[in-house]
């Protein structure tokens, strides 16, 4: 047991967590938005923008300075990332809340826009570096972002499984816990849930519906953007390549459904999704899977999401349903 545990399970677990962190950021952000009644399908584009924002910040700082100041080296990419993803959230809100555009169309358009925009900036930076490979390499910033807790290596497998991650990974869990607390235990959370369940009721109760929608969507987008930043600066070792983010944005949206709109469940859900995302590597070795079977295994998160959707639709339990007004815009004087 112990050989399997130490050589296979522990590394697998750690890699699953690392894969799960971007999904956890994305899903927590998306839950905040969806709780306000807005289905933001622009999340994949928003996460992509969060990633390129961080890359731009880090690139500018690395170009300007020889020795990075650790504080600035982290804060500049972080703030750029938040700015880019926040702007995506603002744009989504302006279109769907103020102009009342169709949420699905707007979201999909923003995903296309975000990916295109990210690739444009990415391509431009690659041109500037004049490198042989089509990458932007930010090793010095990566070294700042991937710092783990100092005592991780002294605690054996336990240290590796629990303490070997970078600060953004812990931040993702902390944010998810805070989001769960705010949603369920505070007045702000009560009001936000009311806005998503029944905006007319919230409005009649004197809640500023539009403000709640704006704030929750922009904050949610910023949180989701951190997922992109984590992916580049930690997982991808500070190496940006165009279209490198894959389908993680959509997995984050699927994770929201899988965890029934609960940020606390998202913490575990993200690790499960992360594990399912990479398990094919392990199964290939163990079971000698063909390439086609690997692709099938990679589909598992989506299949699981569909099964969850079927299950909650069949059970019709009110507490596990999506926010009642999800996807519908609100206009007070509509008759």
């Amino acid at each position: 047991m112990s050989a399997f545990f130490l050589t296979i399970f522990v590394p697998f677990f750690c890699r699953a967590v690392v894969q799960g962190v971007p999904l956890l950021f994305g899903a927590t952000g998306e839950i905040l938005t969806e709780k306000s009644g807005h289905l933001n399908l622009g999340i994949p584009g928003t996460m992509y923008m969060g990633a390129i924002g961080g890359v731009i910040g880090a690139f500018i700082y690395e170009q300007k300075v020889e020795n990075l100041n650790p504080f600035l080296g982290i804060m500049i990419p972080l703030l750029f990332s938040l700015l880019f993803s926040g702007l995506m959230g603002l744009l989504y809100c302006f279109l769907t809340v103020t102009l009342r555009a169709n949420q699905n169309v707007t979201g999909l358009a923003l995903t296309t826009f975000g990916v295109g925009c990210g690739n444009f900036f990415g391509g431009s930076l690659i041109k500037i570096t004049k490198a042989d490979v089509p990458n932007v390499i930010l090793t010095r910033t990566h070294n700042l972002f991937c710092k783990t807790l100092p005592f991780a290596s002294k605690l054996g497998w336990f240290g590796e499984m629990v303490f070997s991650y970078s600060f953004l990974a812990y931040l993702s869990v902390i944010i998810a816990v805070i989001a769960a607390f705010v949603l369920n235990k505070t007045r702000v959370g009560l009001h936000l849930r009311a806005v998503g369940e029944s905006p007319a009721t919230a409005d009649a109760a004197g809640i500023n519906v539009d403000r709640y929608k704006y704030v929750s969507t922009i904050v949610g987008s910023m949180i989701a953007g951190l997922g992109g930043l984590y992916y580049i600066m930690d997982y991808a070792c500070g190496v940006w390549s165009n279209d490198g983010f894959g389908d993680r944005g959509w997995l984050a949206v699927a994770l929201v459904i899988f965890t029934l709109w609960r940020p606390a469940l998202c913490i575990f859900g993200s690790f499960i999704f992360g594990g399912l995302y990479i398990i094919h590597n392990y199964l290939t070795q163990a079971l000698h899977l063909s390439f086609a079977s690997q692709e099938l295994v990679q589909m598992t998160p989506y299949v699981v999401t569909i099964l969850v959707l079927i299950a909650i639709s069949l059970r019709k339990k009110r507490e596990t349903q999506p926010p009642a007004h999800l996807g519908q815009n609100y206009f007070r004087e509509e008759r």
Partner: protein
Amino acid sequence: MKEENPVSDPTKVTSNAPAIELRGITKTFGSVVANNNVNLLVNRGEILSILGENGSGKTTLMNMISGIYFPDKGQIFIDGQEVLIRSPKDAFKYRIGMIHQHFKLVDLFTATENIVLGLEDGRKYDLAAYGKEIAAICEQYGFVIDLNKKIYNMSVSEKQTVEIIKVLYRGADILILDEPTAVLTPQETETLFAVLRRMREAGKSIIIITHKLHEVLSISNRVSVLCKGQYIGTVNTAETNESELTEMMVGKKISLNIHRSEPKGVEDRLVVDNLRCVDREGLPVLKGISFTAKSGEILGIAGIAGSGQRELLEAIAGLQPLTEGTITYNNPTSGKAENLRDKTPTQIRELGVRLSFVPEDRLGMGLVGNMDIVDNMMLRSYRKGPLGFLNRKPPATLADTIISDLEVVTPSSKTPVRRLSGGNVQKVLVGREIASAPTVFMAAYPVRGLDINSSFTIYNLLNEQKEKGVAVIFVGEDLDVLLELCDRILVIGSGAVTGVVDARTVTKEQVGLLMTKTAQEGGTEDGE
């Protein structure tokens, strides 16, 4: 009806200024005037009823007091001070609380959560502490309710109780109740009225919107009447009676000079017997409706909106599942009697039973807004034609005929119907339905929102159908039109028939009284 003297003890009035006063309030939606120059006054410790038919602007008026809408013109005074109520928040500030007809509650929340929703009192968010305070209010006014129950598990009457506690908890002194008894059983209504009387004794001002006359007389001190957005007047309940109120509510008879021919070739076409159905919550909507529609005559259906007209027409068209009842169709070509309940909507249509629009979604149910007139004609003929290819010729000809015959104002038959005005949309829809030579033609509110000329075009169309021997069923809201256009009028109240009258001899007041009467359940009358 009058169990007690409705006038409260005058010593309860603490201030001379009225609790709330409205002067010259006007509100328009597009070209529709919902309220025109309305005045209203409520004192402390008083219950004021607002009486009016549906569409008379009662709810719009109350929405302006509670900050949902903002008036175009006019002033609102609270305790003699002029105020601006721009949002529901402002309304709370002036201690106004509204209990809407459609409850504003979050289904997923408990009673307590709903009651504290939107509260910004700067205190710690502690549901247990709030629960205690709310329980105290319940005790004071005699409400019995489980505060931790979720709304979706509650009965209609429990939900209403939560709404009332909600406004009381916020310290409302002026309570507005929009048709609070429409959804209640008689026992629940009595309980509610007992609570309202207790609140009046505690010095609250209460405005209650209703169209049930006996309730007005039993609960209120004074009555204000609205008719078609106009303010008619206010009377003391003690000095009035049902017939005076009805006359104020329906207004003076106006002569319209609609052409009406004598029915010819009258035979029973559609015999409806004891129709019953329930809504999504399982509450009865149709409570045993029976009537006969005859060929060559127009049968009018009158009633307060939402009394079951829509469900009745949809039941005949096969769109509404029934729990009980039969619909017998006497087929004029085969001479056989057929039960429509066994048939699909398509089969019913093919027999020649045509349902024209219900205006809540004039476009939604009958026409596709983004398609042009020709394509909309094809919605009725797309199944015809060989091998799944469409023949666009006949519908194009039909579209042109309708445009010229009914004087539809449109750039061409290729214009999306969404861009036409309401009247022209309605002409297109009626034109298409009557082009298929129906034997039963049902039209619900076909002239709502139309100008006078378009309305007369529709009346003439209906008359033409009648003269062709079609059994026409006309659901209307304007009593003047019903009295001049129809041959017989079926009056329904809360899903049951309250009377069938001869439109040539009946008076407006008689119909008005029947509309506000609640029939005995299963009360079935036939016009014979």
